[in-house]
């Protein structure tokens, strides 16, 4: 599955448009890591637990989006956008959406 945030698929030609597909997830970290992050707040810097949380959530959102694209018979998702909404400290919704298309490799 070719996934891109461009309107075009480099090296490929779009053969059909199949509409918008999306995937989202709401994630939270367990309380222990939340407390550790609270302590890290004193000295500042990267909150690794939250970075990981966001990365995992984003991967999951993209995974669900591509699953939906496969279900409608697409082999690429273009013009992908991300939206993040933080619900409370330690919980966030991540949404990925894009246009499902079919593409074929361009002869070089």
């Amino acid at each position, binding site marked *: 599955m*070719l996934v891109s945030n461009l309107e075009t698929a480099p090296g490929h030609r779009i053969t059909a448009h199949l509409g918008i597909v999306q995937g989202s997830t709401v994630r939270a970290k367990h309380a222990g890591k939340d407390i550790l992050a609270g302590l890290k*707040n004193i000295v500042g810097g990267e909150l690794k637990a939250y970075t990981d949380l*966001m990365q995992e959530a984003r991967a999951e959102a993209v995974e669900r989006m591509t699953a939906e694209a496969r279900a409608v018979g697409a082999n690429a998702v273009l013009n992908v956008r991300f939206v993040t909404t*933080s*619900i409370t400290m330690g919980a966030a919704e991540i949404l990925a959406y894009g246009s499902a298309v079919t593409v074929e490799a361009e002869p070089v």
Partner: protein
Amino acid sequence: MNLHFWLETFNLWVVLVPLLLGYGVGRWLERRHYRSIREREQALRHVLALSTRYVPEGVVAGSAQLVTGGVVISSDYFKTFVAGFRKFFGGRFRGYETLLERARREALLRLKAQAEAAGSTLVIGVRFQSTTIAGSATPSVEIMAFGTALIGTRPPTPAA
């Protein structure tokens, strides 16, 4: 020694210890982070990231792949404390500027590292996105960079 005295003393330390920790350790961490950023930026100089949405003229791409880089970064207690005064008087606040700057550079570095791992030296359509993480005592922010890594490009980069 009455109870009141101890309460007062305790309260003072509750404010002072995080302030000193935030100032000392926070500054040290920030310097170390900047050093690490500069080193990795040198090491990843061959990966070019552009914000343009089109494949540069003269480059032929075989395929493409979405790459991302993200980081959640938090202000320290000292910076947050000083920011309280700054908000009263207004003006530029360097403490938060460096915080966001290094987060953004870190996110871009992680995006480039992901592109390199996918065998790409050219990322186009790069966008930055920030989200404030709600509810904590010191503000934290998530910075995310995403773009499209071009794979199997000839020549590898427009400059090459």
